């Protein structure tokens, strides 16, 4: 049954030469056998049908180019007689009906349309008021963007009728906050209240509600069953709404898979599966959905394992939510699914990468306490345990149960089969990881709740919720709200030692190999916030964690030790360096290559960098005295008149003081043969460092003042670059931070070459420093700066390619049109410029790539040499 029809005739043109054009359209709309009625005449290009369902529209515009007429049909339908929805259908009209002049000379007869037809490309749209409708629909497809400087958002806000923003904000608020704080009322009451509020706005704000709801599904997965229950209730009251939200979510799922946002895609899948519990989707179609995912696992050939792994992971991840229901109603299908997964996991899957990503690894006789299991293997074991337990888990809040009476009679929708975007060479998938464990139930306080076992599905579910909160807040780098949400979560999770679990998850993210999902410093400052918000439990768990890490340093990957050192030194600097240092005293006497010794020594070193030498002496126990790092100061010996290079050094010192030019400096560096002397160059550089020893700004100023000198000499040979590095080391070996900073600067200034730096770092001369973090930090910094630079160039290259291709199309588009000649010429020359830029960037990118490849080979080579 049909209520109101809104028709719109929209005209679009490209502004090139002004002329009047117009078109008229006639037709009749039927709803079943009855004419579609309820009429009000309105605007020139907008109208309603008359009592017989007939309409006439005409439109004209002064445009410079041919117009694109579009006939839009907006239909308010009554699905159940209470809640009208809105359908939108578009028809493109033949251009031959457009005539010159303001009054149309021809009328296009669209004939009789029965609105019971379901159109292939039907859209749904919220229309707030007629004014809004006209503006937004006409504005939507304007080919030329307005170049007003207040941007799109403001423009939209201005156009919307007053109050829309307010309602939108209110809806955002009530939907995203449901279930957060129960103000005395039960959650069930709150859900019911929310549904009533949404009902009220369903008529005019339907698409807004769908948008907001979908956003909550994607970004608030920790409240997944709250939203699935709300959607269930709304679907029971209004069948179409359920269908629309499922449609929206399947669309989002495709978009997220396309853009490689697998976290978001997974959340949508979990939600869709849980809609089986709240009776929005048929169990049949959910089974088919899962089966279609599994089918890809066995059908797709020659795709990376990580792609298939993700599909398996997504299915396994959804089973805690829907497993019990499947077990009861589709036991055979469930068994088939599990059988399929088992085949893949046990027979097909490879795990060679595992030792590379493990945080701990057994070394000789020292074995690891916790097995660092592959994530899929672990989840598979947990799911098997869940199956043994008859799919009964104790964690997921099943809010839908309270609404069983409402939900049981609801009409259900079918979920379309799963389809994944095809694999392309550049597609990226989530890396595999190991399940990081630090604590055992015995590590947690005896009088507190018990830590769920390694194989318990509850452990997995809670860890996932914690991870969701961290990652979704981490997207905004918002440590404050992240800590706040985690603290709120901790309040509700009273049946587990939650501080230990939160800490373990934060550390698991921080220690993820090859790299953590978020910047390390984000986790470091998040842990500080958590210590403040959970003062009773968190600092204790944290101290215990550090102690365990220290005890197990022997089996820890060196790079993870480095991460712990960076984190804990920062942490201590925020807590007055108070720590039971005495406990680590034993490690100081151990051999210099003992992991515990390295651990303690490097933490002291980094604490020194964040504070100062006297402070270090203050907070470390007295017996640490002999083990303190050397006083950080420059070692400069050329000012001693007995030094054989005293004369040379004085000469350079004078040259610096008299502000000698690069030419004078270069002259002074030349030997009798006219080539640059290594000794002189080393002394020149030592003098420069001595003059700039006060602060880094001083050194940098000196470096940039004599950039030309440095670059010219160091380009004369690798051995001259080596001289720079040796002089730097001789001056600053007591303070590696300076070495790191100066090397980094000179790499950026292209005075030093990466390969020379690496071969120096791993040379026999430096063997005694091989246990030091600064050496590896220097290398890693150089490598990551290089890959950042390459990524940047790659981005520019891709942009240029797009730009070039778009120019190509634009020229082709214009073929056949009457064009002015010079415009074509202009376009051609622009295209030529774009081509040149593209080629330039392409070459630069390739050169850098080759450089990087060779550099890696060099590193392998020098590492290999230093090991053998």
């Amino acid at each position, binding site marked *: 049954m049909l209520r109101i029809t809104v028709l719109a005739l929209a005209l679009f043109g490209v502004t090139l030469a002004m002329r009047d054009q117009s078109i008229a359209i006639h037709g009749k709309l039927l709803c079943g056998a009855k004419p579609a009625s309820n009429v009000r005449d309105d605007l020139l290009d907008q109208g309603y049908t008359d009592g017989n369902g007939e309409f006439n529209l005409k439109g004209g515009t002064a445009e410079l180019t041919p117009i694109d007429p579009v006939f839009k049909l907006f239909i308010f339908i009554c699905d159940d007689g209470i809640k009208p929805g809105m359908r939108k259908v578009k028809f493109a009209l033949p251009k031959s009906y457009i005539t010159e002049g303001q009054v149309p000379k021809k009328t296009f007869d669209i004939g009789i349309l029965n609105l019971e037809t379901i159109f292939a490309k039907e859209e749904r749209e919220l229309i707030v008021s007629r004014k809004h409708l006209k503006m937004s629909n006409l504005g939507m497809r304007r080919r030329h963007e307005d170049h007003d400087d207040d941007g799109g958002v403001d423009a939209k806000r201005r156009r919307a009728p007053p109050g829309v923003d307010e309602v939108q904000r209110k809806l955002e608020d009530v939907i995203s906050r449901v279930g957060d704080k129960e103000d005395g009322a039960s959650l069930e009451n709150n859900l019911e209240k929310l549904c009533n509020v949404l009902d009220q706005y369903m008529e005019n704000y339907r698409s807004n509600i769908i948008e907001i709801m979908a956003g909550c599904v994607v970004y608030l997965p920790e409240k997944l069953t709250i939203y699935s229950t709300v959607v269930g209730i709304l679907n029971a009251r209004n069948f179409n709404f359920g269908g629309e939200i499922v449609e929206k979510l399947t669309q989002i799922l495709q978009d997220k898979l396309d853009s490689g946002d697998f976290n978001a895609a997974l959340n949508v899948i979990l939600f869709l599966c849980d809609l089986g519990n709240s009776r929005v989707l048929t169990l049949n179609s959910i089974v088919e959905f899962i089966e279609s995912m599994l089918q890809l696992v066995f059908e797709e050939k020659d795709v990376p394992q990580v792609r298939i792994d993700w599909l398996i992971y997504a299915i396994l991840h959804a089973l805690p939510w829907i497993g019990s229901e499947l077990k009861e109603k589709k036991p055979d299908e469930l068994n088939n699914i599990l059988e399929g997964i088992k085949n893949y996991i046990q027979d097909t899957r490879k795990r060679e990468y595992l030792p590379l990503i493990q945080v701990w690894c057994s070394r000789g006789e020292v074995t690891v306490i916790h097995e660092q299991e592959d994530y899929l293997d672990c989840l598979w074991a947990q799911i098997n345990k869940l199956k043994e337990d008859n799919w009964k888990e104790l964690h997921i809040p099943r809010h839908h149960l309270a609404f069983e009476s409402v939900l049981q009679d609801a009409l259900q929708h079918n979920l379309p089969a799963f389809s994944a975007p095809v694999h392309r060479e550049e597609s990226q998938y989530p890396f595999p990881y190991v399940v990081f464990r630090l604590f055992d139930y015995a590590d947690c306080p005896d009088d507190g709740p018990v830590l769920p076992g390694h194989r318990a599905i509850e452990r997995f579910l809670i860890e996932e919720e914690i991870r969701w909160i961290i990652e979704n807040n981490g997207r905004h780098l*918002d440590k404050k709200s992240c800590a706040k949400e985690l603290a709120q979560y901790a309040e509700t999770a009273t049946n587990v030692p939650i501080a230990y679990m939160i800490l373990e998850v934060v550390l698991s993210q921080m220690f993820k190999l090859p790299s953590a999902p978020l910047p390390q410093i984000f986790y470091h400052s998040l842990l500080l916030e958590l210590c403040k918000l959970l003062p009773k439990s968190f600092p204790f768990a944290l101290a215990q964690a550090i102690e365990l890490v220290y005890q197990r340093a022997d089996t820890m990957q060196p790079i993870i030790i480095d991460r712990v050192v960076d984190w804990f030194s*920062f942490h201590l*600097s925020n807590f*007055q360096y108070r720590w039971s240092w005495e406990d680590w005293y034993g490690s100081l006497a151990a051999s210099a290559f003992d992991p515990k010794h390295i651990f303690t020594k490097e933490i002291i070193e980094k604490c020194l960098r*964040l*504070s100062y030498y006297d402070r270090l002496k203050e907070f470390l126990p007295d017996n640490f005295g002999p083990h303190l790092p050397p006083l950080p100061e420059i070692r400069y010996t050329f000012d001693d008149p007995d030094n054989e290079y005293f004369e040379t050094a004085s000469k350079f010192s004078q040259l610096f003081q008299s502000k000698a030019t690069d030419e004078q400096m270069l002259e002074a560096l030349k030997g009798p043969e006219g080539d640059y002397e290594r000794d002189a160059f080393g002394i020149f550089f030592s003098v420069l460092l001595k003059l700039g020893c006060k602060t880094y700004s001083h050194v940098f100023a000196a470096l940039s003042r004599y950039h030309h000198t440095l670059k010219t000499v160091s380009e004369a040979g690798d051995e001259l670059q080596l001289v720079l590095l040796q002089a730097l080391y001789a001056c600053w070996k007591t303070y590696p*931070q300076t070495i790191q900073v100066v090397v980094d600067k000179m790499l950026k200034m292209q005075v030093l070459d990466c390969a020379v730096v690496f071969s120096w770092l791993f040379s026999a001369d430096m063997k005694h420093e091989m246990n030091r973090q600064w050496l590896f930090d220097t290398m890693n910094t150089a490598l990551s700066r290089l890959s950042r630079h390459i990524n940047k160039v790659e981005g520019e290259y891709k942009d240029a390619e797009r730009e070039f291709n778009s120019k190509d199309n634009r020229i082709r588009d214009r073929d056949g049109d009457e064009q002015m000649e010079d415009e074509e010429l202009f376009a051609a020359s622009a295209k030529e410029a774009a081509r040149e830029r593209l080629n330039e960037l392409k070459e630069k990118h390739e050169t850098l790539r080759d450089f990087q490849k060779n550099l890696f080979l060099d590193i392998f080579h020098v590492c290999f040499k230093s090991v053998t």
Partner: protein
Amino acid sequence: MVDQLTFDPRNRNRGDSISQYRDQRYKGTLKEQEIALRSSATLYIGNLSYYTREEQVYELFGRGGDVRRVIMGLDRFRKTPCGFCFVEFYTRMDAEIAMEALNQTRLDERTVRVDWDAGFVEGRQYGRGKHGGQVRDEYRKDYDPGRGGWNKMIASRGGGDE
């Protein structure tokens, strides 16, 4: 990093990371200043101890990303550190990471205040207070050993300072 297409509930109540402070001596229109603040890769760091050295700032802020340079705030007359600095990063993204993570953390046991800066211009490294250091050191009421003891007005009335 943040996808604009899907509504993100956590975006709703997020405050602006740019504080209320506006440099009154900024050369340019208010609008230009806003744009500069929103695109700059420079941070202002406040509430430092006078004794904090440049290397410490490099160490701490280098953990946020790639630091281009650090400009220590100096007393206009004495040319000694007076408790603030600017940190310039190579990219906005790195500056954002440092800003979000390091604001309100401690350096030399003092809680540092991190804020966006429209970009360093020569001259801005000097304190703008009458005494040569920062204006805020002329108004605070507490005794702060890290920042020269009593505030400069009290101290100079005591006859010790200028």
